[in-house]
């Protein structure tokens, strides 16, 4: 067995990661199809191209582990196991959504699947994940908390404070940076004084690892190490996964600020087709099995969208419901 083969995840894990990537991509394509044809309208920050990171995450975490992600979160949410029907319904702001249609893409939360929440304020989810990790440590639950965020978030004060505290208290947290090269229209190199996000780990005395975020096998290996370390009480890890957002910052972004050669190279390094080819080559999947996985994903996505589009939107009065645990005495 070669060194690469020896370090690969088992076949059933690799197949699972391909299933996740396929489901994420099908769902993302369906959202973009609905938006570009004017079939429906919703806010959307495509994670197209970042599926491999989510697949590694979904396969490396336990069902009861906890994840905080961002507005660019569909891939992470699907991978963490948020049920597709209520997830899609939330994207389309329907009452059947995980947040009763009041959160939208930016605020997906589904505690039963360990998706604590998604946030729209850059960097804000990182200290929240640290709080979640502290709770797990105090309860001795053995759970691990993951903060998933972008390269841009590493320039915020909350990133620094959060990692500092987690490192000091050896909290069971994994800091997962999905470095897609841009924060809105600003290239990473124009926003950070270090060569790589992972260089910052040394400042907190914690291990850092930088991997190809378009390779689910590598991401899975690095995450498994970081999760194991966190669960054993040894403290947090900073993991940087390099990738690219293939459809820009928001839906409709023409990406005029991205050099043509960079975009071309990123499209060629697209992870879903690449992983499919590799699994066929390694004998983990047969063509017929891959096609069946893709067909099932389309069917599941089709059903989720049909149900969501048939559901109602919340009434305006609903805006005041679920804001506080106990409303009486709080609001006039």
């Amino acid at each position, binding site marked *: 067995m070669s060194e690469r083969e020896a370090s690969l995840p088992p076949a059933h894990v690799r197949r699972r990661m391909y299933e996740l990537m396929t489901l994420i991509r099908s769902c993302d394509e369906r959202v973009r199809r609905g938006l570009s044809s*004017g079939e429906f309208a919703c806010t959307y920050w495509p994670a197209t191209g970042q599926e491999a990171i989510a697949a590694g995450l979904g396969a490396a975490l336990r069902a009861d582990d906890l994840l905080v992600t961002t507005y660019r979160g569909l891939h992470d949410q699907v991978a963490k196991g948020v049920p597709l029907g209520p997830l899609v319904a939330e994207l389309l702001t329907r009452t059947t959504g995980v947040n009763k249609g009041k959160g939208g893409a930016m605020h997906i939360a589904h505690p039963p699947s360990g998706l604590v929440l998604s946030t729209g304020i850059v960097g804000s989810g990182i200290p929240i994940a640290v709080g979640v990790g502290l709770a797990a440590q105090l309860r001795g639950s053995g759970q691990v908390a993951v903060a998933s965020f972008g390269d841009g978030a590493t320039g915020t004060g909350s990133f620094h404070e959060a990692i500092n505290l987690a490192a000091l208290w050896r909290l069971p947290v994994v800091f997962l940076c999905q470095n897609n090269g841009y924060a809105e229209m600003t290239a990473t190199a124009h926003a950070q004084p270090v060569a790589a996000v992972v260089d910052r780990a040394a400042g907190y005395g914690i291990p850092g690892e930088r991997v190809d975020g378009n390779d689910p096998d590598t991401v899975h290996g690095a995450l498994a190490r970081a999760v194991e370390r966190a669960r054993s009480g040894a403290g947090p890890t900073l993991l940087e996964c390099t990738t690219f957002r293939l459809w820009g910052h928001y839906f409709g972004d023409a990406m005029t600020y991205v050099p043509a050669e960079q975009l071309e190279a990123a499209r060629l390094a697209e992870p879903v087709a690449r992983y499919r080819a590799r699994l066929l080559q390694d004998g983990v999947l047969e063509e017929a099995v891959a096609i069946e996985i893709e067909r099932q994903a*389309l069917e599941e996505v089709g059903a989720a969208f049909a149900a969501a589009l048939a559901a109602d939107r919340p009434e305006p009065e609903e805006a005041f419901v679920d804001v506080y645990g106990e409303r009486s005495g709080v609001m006039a």
Partner: protein
Amino acid sequence: MTIHIRIPKLGMEMTEATLTKWLIDDGAGVAQDQALYVLETDKVESEVTAPVAGVLRRIGREGETYAVGELVAEVLEALARPGEDP
């Protein structure tokens, strides 16, 4: 199956937009995700892509302003997608 192409709502406040330029000829084939036309709102230009592969029938005209949801084209789909009715 014919897919309707309507003016998308690209921002919370957007109610109308100008179709500034067609990027595909009338009657020509388009690939899924290929840019179809340029849409301008609040001085921001976006490229609207084809939701499916097929043959384009233009309806909207360059330079015209349309309300969100107005029909500007149709794409006669090349193939039925697996798992969906044709």
